[in-house]
């Protein structure tokens, strides 16, 4: 039996429990939400106002990390092999690229490789355990694809981003073999500013490829030498298709292994009123295919603004973080006579949170009737909104950024904020009707919607949450204390004796 004093003590404890239960700290929970992960900032491919011409691009790429210890380095580690072939297995790119990716200890290396795809082409990327490949990393700063003389330390012993993703492609410095391969694959090659890919379009009706250089003549452009850029994937357009007045474009890429698989598509608006063709059509499909679950995902939407008479499509999902062994990507585009483009210039680069690269963008608007090309805005650094790592990190060799990364990681272990125990007092009276984000679960079950909102109204939830938040701890810990008190006799007042 519990004596009167014990009962009073229990009542006191209960009162304190009630009072402190008001100090509900949801912060305990919020902090667990902050887990390292890859976060993608959704970029928009800049498409610029141009007179009558349209360029649509899609970038795809792989992202991975490699790391090795200094003792395992050998000369061949520096060479990355890339094999790219089309669906028939015919290689059209095969190149070993010097690629210093070593830093002290483990060099976390992320690379997003853009690919320019031919319709129905398949890019197979193969790499060994210490290397990787991507098609356009042909040069480093020196432009010869080899480490610069006299700066071995800089090139080898650091994760030098200028050596990581040198997209400055100059055909004059491309090896003869590679040029041959490219030229052989691309019968309509245009190489004044680099090289481009063939304008092959796939005719779904006939099941054949047609070479077409009348519309997107020179899509693939290359930026200035010191910039990091996405190369643009041309998707093929035709307004003279013999079947239905439009042709569906198809590009695909398949990878094996576990990748972060980003892609991005521009936000495009077109005005049919300014179109020279009265029958305007714009259909956009961007589809992710998850091989493990055989689910197609369509993150892109198409809309029509009746007021402005503008069609637009936007792809908000730009990456597919693959947890599986295979991931594929396909895109179909269908256009007819797109005569003007309203675009936004708020370019946001890809950026890996905790990772490591951002990329400048590059767009080349092409003239459908003229074979000349119009490189647009190849220097857009000022528009970047990098949060953690700036382009200076790239220019400075990125080693500092990596050091900062690990330093921050270690520092975070010993740096924390003291949670306010009374913040729960406010939390209990806060609005309980806010929607919650469930990106992890949504990704697991392939939900398009990653936000869940409560079914009950705000008033009900606010009241019930407060009541339950008080009484559940009361009951639970009340029984616990009661149990402790009864098992140890005069447990409660022991301290006073």
């Amino acid at each position: 039996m519990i004596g009167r004093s014990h009962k009073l003590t229990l009542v006191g404890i209960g009162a304190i429990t009630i009072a402190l239960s008001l100090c509900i700290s949801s912060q305990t929970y919020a902090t667990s939400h902050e887990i390292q992960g890859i976060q993608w900032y959704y970029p928009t491919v800049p498409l610029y106002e141009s007179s009558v011409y349209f360029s649509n691009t899609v970038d795809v790429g792989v992202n991975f990390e490699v790391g090795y210890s200094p003792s395992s380095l050998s000369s061949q580690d520096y060479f990355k092999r890339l094999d790219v072939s089309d669906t028939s297995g015919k290689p059209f790119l095969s190149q070993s690229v010097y690629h210093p990716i070593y830093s002290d200890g483990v060099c976390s290396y992320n690379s997003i490789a853009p690919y320019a795809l031919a319709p129905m082409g398949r890019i197979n990327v193969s790499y060994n355990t210490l290397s990787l490949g991507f098609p356009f990393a042909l040069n480093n700063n020196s432009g010869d694809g080899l480490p610069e003389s006299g700066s071995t330390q800089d090139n080898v012993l650091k994760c030098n981003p200028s050596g990581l993703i040198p997209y400055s492609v100059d055909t004059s410095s491309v090896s003869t073999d590679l040029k041959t391969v490219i030229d052989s694959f691309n019968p309509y090659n245009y190489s004044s500013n680099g090289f481009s890919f063939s304008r092959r379009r796939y005719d779904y009706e006939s099941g054949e490829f047609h070479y077409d250089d009348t519309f997107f003549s020179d899509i693939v452009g290359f930026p200035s030498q010191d910039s990091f850029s996405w190369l643009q994937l041309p998707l093929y357009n035709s307004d003279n298709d013999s079947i239905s007045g439009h042709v569906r474009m198809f590009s695909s890429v398949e990878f094996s292994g576990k990748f972060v698989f980003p892609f991005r598509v521009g936000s495009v608006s077109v005005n049919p009123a300014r179109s020279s063709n009265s029958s305007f059509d714009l259909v956009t499909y961007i589809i992710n295919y998850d091989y493990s679950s055989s689910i197609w995902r369509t993150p892109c939407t198409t809309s029509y603004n009746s007021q402005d008479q503008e069609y637009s499509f936007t792809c908000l999902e730009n990456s597919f973080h693959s947890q599986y062994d295979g991931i594929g990507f396909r895109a179909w585009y269908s256009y007819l006579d797109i005569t003007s483009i309203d675009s936004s210039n708020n370019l946001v680069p890809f950026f890996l949170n905790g990772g490591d690269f951002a990329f400048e963008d590059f767009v080349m608007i092409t003239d459908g009737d003229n074979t000349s090309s119009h490189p647009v805005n190849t220097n857009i650094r000022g528009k970047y909104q990098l949060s953690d790592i700036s382009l200076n990190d790239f220019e400075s060799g990125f080693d500092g950024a990596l050091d900062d990364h690990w330093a921050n990681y270690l520092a975070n272990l010993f740096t924390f904020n003291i949670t306010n125990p009374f913040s729960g007092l406010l939390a209990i009276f806060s609005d309980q009707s806010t929607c919650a984000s469930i990106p992890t679960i949504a990704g697991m079950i392939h939900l398009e919607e990653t936000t869940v909102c409560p079914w009950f109204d705000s008033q009900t939830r606010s009241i019930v949450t407060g009541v339950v938040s008080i009484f559940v701890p009361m009951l639970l810990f009340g029984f616990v204390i009661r149990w402790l008190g009864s098992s140890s006799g005069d447990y409660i007042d022991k301290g006073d004796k």
Partner: protein
Amino acid sequence: MLGSISSNVISVVKFIACILVSGVFLVAINTLISLVTTFVIPPIVKEVFDLLSMFLPFNIGTIMGALSTILSAILSFKVARKIFSLISWTIASAS
């Protein structure tokens, strides 16, 4: 009479000290629980609670926060009582 007053003053000081110490421990323990929760509980648990809270008339996350707070409160209460008893023992021994 004077002894009774001094005893009361000492008791008040002890109570104040106990309250202050328990407050400090409340914050400390609450912070420690937060840290442990951060590393132990995966983030998906929060998402599961959010998902469950979607069709419940209350927020599970808030309740779980209440539980952790009460846990820290009880622990700090026990610590405070222990300190209180130690102070009493020390004062009694000194006198």
